[in-house]
């Protein structure tokens, strides 16, 4: 009996104090994915990476918006979104207290505006993504003229780009050059 009591005192209390005291989670614990919408460029990389389709993106061409949404109820906390995010906008946090009484509270949405193609006016990508890619191509030290050229180049839709290429080739006047050779 005394031996048992000694063992009990030696072991101490193993039970965690949670929920009365915060619990320490392990390093690299994968909890609630936190979306920093200001950093997001709405490129949809996370949407494609997400195995259970918890992250989704919907494009409303008429309103000119692209809506990013996550359902924490469907999330399996695999961290693929964090891996695929080019700007580090989504990060898995140590927050595990996600229980809710209303299902609607399990979603987060972010609305982004779409950029329009300067030639045909169709929307191809979000405005932030276009700006980010132009910045990436030109670097931070591009001149204003160069930056404007890059912005035009990036925001043009693939179809218009093809059309412009053909026009460019026609302007080169290849046939005449071949005759002169």
């Amino acid at each position, binding site marked *: 009996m005394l031996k048992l009591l000694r063992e009990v005192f030696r072991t101490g209390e193993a039970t965690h104090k949670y929920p009365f005291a915060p619990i320490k989670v392990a390093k690299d614990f994968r909890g609630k994915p936190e979306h920093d*919408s200001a950093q997001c460029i709405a490129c949809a990389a996370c949407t494609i990476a997400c195995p259970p389709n918890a992250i989704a993106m919907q494009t409303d061409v008429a309103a000119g918006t692209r809506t990013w949404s996550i359902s924490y109820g469907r999330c399996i906390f695999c961290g693929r979104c964090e891996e695929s995010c080019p700007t580090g906008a989504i990060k898995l946090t140590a927050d595990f207290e996600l*229980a809710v*009484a209303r299902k609607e*509270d*399990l979603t987060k*949405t972010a609305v982004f505006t779409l950029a329009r193609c300067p030639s045909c006016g169709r929307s191809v990508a979000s405005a*932030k993504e276009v700006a980010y890619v132009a*910045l990436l191509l030109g670097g*931070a030290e591009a001149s204003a003229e160069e930056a404007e050229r890059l912005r035009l180049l990036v925001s043009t839709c693939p179809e218009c780009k093809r059309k412009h290429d053909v026009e460019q080739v026609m302007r080169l006047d290849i046939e005449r050059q071949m005759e002169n050779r």
Partner: protein
Amino acid sequence: MNAFTSPDDLVVKPNGLSMSDDVTRMKGLLLKNIKRSAYVYRVDCGGCNGCEIEIFAAITPLFDAERFGIKVVASPRHADILLFTGAVTRAMRMPALRAYEAAPEPKIVVSYGACGCSGGIFHDLYCVWGGTDKIVPVDVYIPGCPPTPPATIYGFAVALGLLDQKLKAETYVEAEGEAVPLAHPAIPYNLRVLLEREARQMAGYRQGRDIVEEFLSLLEADDRTSVEARVGRLIGGETDPRRAEIFSRLQAVFTQALVGGVS
């Protein structure tokens, strides 16, 4: 003739069971002042058993849900709380409904895990209903794949009305003229790509990014010593030989880029 417009039209939508008014009132009272133990009956609706393992982890002495009077019972007839795990397979629909009917009113229904909340990774499978709330009215959702024992305890605390839920639905609208700045503008983009690629090859996407961020901040650091000396100091102070190896590889990539030139 009925024309199907989407695959959703092919799914037979079961009617969720409706609750009568006094059951709702009784449930409200139960939630407000439950002054006795809450008995939990666990209904496995075709889960992978990960959730079950975490439920049983939550009643071990380490987390000890029984100190709050939460007790797992063997029959739905004793239960106050019904815990539905799994994405509700076709075959488990009737047994789940029987368990629901067998539990005495008022009862609290908890949907446990990503599968229970919305079907989880199985949400578009042909043989699942995709979530507990498709067949019975749910009071509390505990997301997680599986929810950890602390998340389980938190969920029960929410179900019993002891704690308030923290999560709220959010909608963010892009501000006018919002732009994302380039990370590490001082480092040439091509060099950054080389370093990131090397780190990811060595340590995987997640840890690779952490390591390369550390290395890049070292490169950007504004001090008088040379980069070699700084990296040498970092490698010297590193206790994990794997990280030290990756840092030396990154340094090799950096030196190679300096010698070969980065456009």
